[in-house]
């Protein structure tokens, strides 16, 4: 399973892309990640409830893409609109020692 999270906005306005491949995780960590993807209902859009509030200044917004075998799903959400489960998944990926991260200006 591959996860990629594009994070934009924020005080710096830069775009941070964080990616993770379960090939790089231990067994328990992979299981934890898969559980979080399930809890966040990434592949069940109808379960996810899609409230979008207006942009708040200097807040992050996210685009999360998960690829798993033949499934691929993209979710976009503002920081303040994240479900607790999506928030938890994003935090876990950002804090994983196995993550790769690239920072670039907006637009590219």
């Amino acid at each position, binding site marked *: 399973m591959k996860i990629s999270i594009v994070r934009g906005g924020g005080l710096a306005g830069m775009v941070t892309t964080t990616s993770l491949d379960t090939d790089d995780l231990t067994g328990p960590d992979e299981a934890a990640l898969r559980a979080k993807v399930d809890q966040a209902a990434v592949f069940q859009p109808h379960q996810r409830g899609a409230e979008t509030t207006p942009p708040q200044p200097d807040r992050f917004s996210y685009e999360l893409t998960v690829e798993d075998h033949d499934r691929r799903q993209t979710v976009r959400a503002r920081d303040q609109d994240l479900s607790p489960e999506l928030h938890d998944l994003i935090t876990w990926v*950002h804090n994983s020692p196995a993550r790769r991260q690239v920072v670039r200006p907006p*637009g590219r």
Partner: protein
Amino acid sequence: MQSTSHAHSQGSATRCYIAPPYLLAQLATRGSAEQRSAATRTLVESAAIRARRATLAHVLRESVALPGEGLVAGEHVTVYDAGHGGDANLPGTRMRGDADPESSDDAVNQAFDGADKTYQFYRQVYGRDSVDGQGLGLVSSVHYGTDFDNAFWNGSQMVYGDGSGQLFQVGGLTKDIDVMAHELTHGVTQYTAGLTYHTQSGALNESISDVFGSLVKQHTLGQTADQADWLIGEGILGPALNGRALRSMAAPGTAFDGDPQPADMDAYVNLPDDDNPSNDHGGVHINSGIPNHAFYLVATSLGGNAWERAGQIWYDTLTGGNLPADATFAVGAQATLAAAGQRYGAGSAEQQAVQNAWQQVKVV
């Protein structure tokens, strides 16, 4: 958490009460005898608390602790520890208010000083009583999230992460007065021009926060326009960004390696205004470099303390009621010209400096 009698409006949004006044009013007039009695008592007591708070806040400016509330009546700055929680946990545990001594937590003290200095700046320089002009208590929460590389104004309060050490140094987000004043100024804009956060009006919104962020720093350090470094977020970047600061108003595009900011309209970055996080709502943090540079040019052209004339013109523009929420750069420029003419006279040196600045950045 929320007091039944604590309410304020934030732009167009209103706080929710536990028992809304209309419900209490209905019960007070149409309920059973017991309901009428209880509702009337609640309404009267709530009104008394509000009246007492308003009286103390505006007349005495003294602290009276009301039971069950973290915000002390009349307090203008309060800092909380968000305990690494998220939005649902805000504001968190009360750590320091006006009458309290310094905390053992550096972030708490820095956030306190940042809000206090910003409050004092707006009050002393422009006669403005807090972000709403009516003494709104400034609430800040530190230690939000885990290694969170951001700070923001959420419509009601300031929120600071700790920084991850990547984008921002750990502890960096409460270290720079201009960053804290930038965020608080989003509150001022919310209560005044309400510049919508996308494309050019969003870039103006961002620029207003950088302008007054920089002015609060200059005022705190006692610097003239020539002495100021005109940098936003100086010295707090982590290794993910190789550079001295987040943004430069004096030389947009030079703050860090790969700084994308333009200095004039020839280099305006046209990004789609969509929900793709890569597009920054149409580049609000990028194109803010253009109005930032215009302000820098006005301030350095006029010389002296930048908050006195350049800042006054910009403050008049923001709060004068003639800057629409969807203002483009061109509309914003005209508004600053009108404000300069009104304050200093048509054809004045001040108005000429404003005209020259917007011409130099190719907005007019």
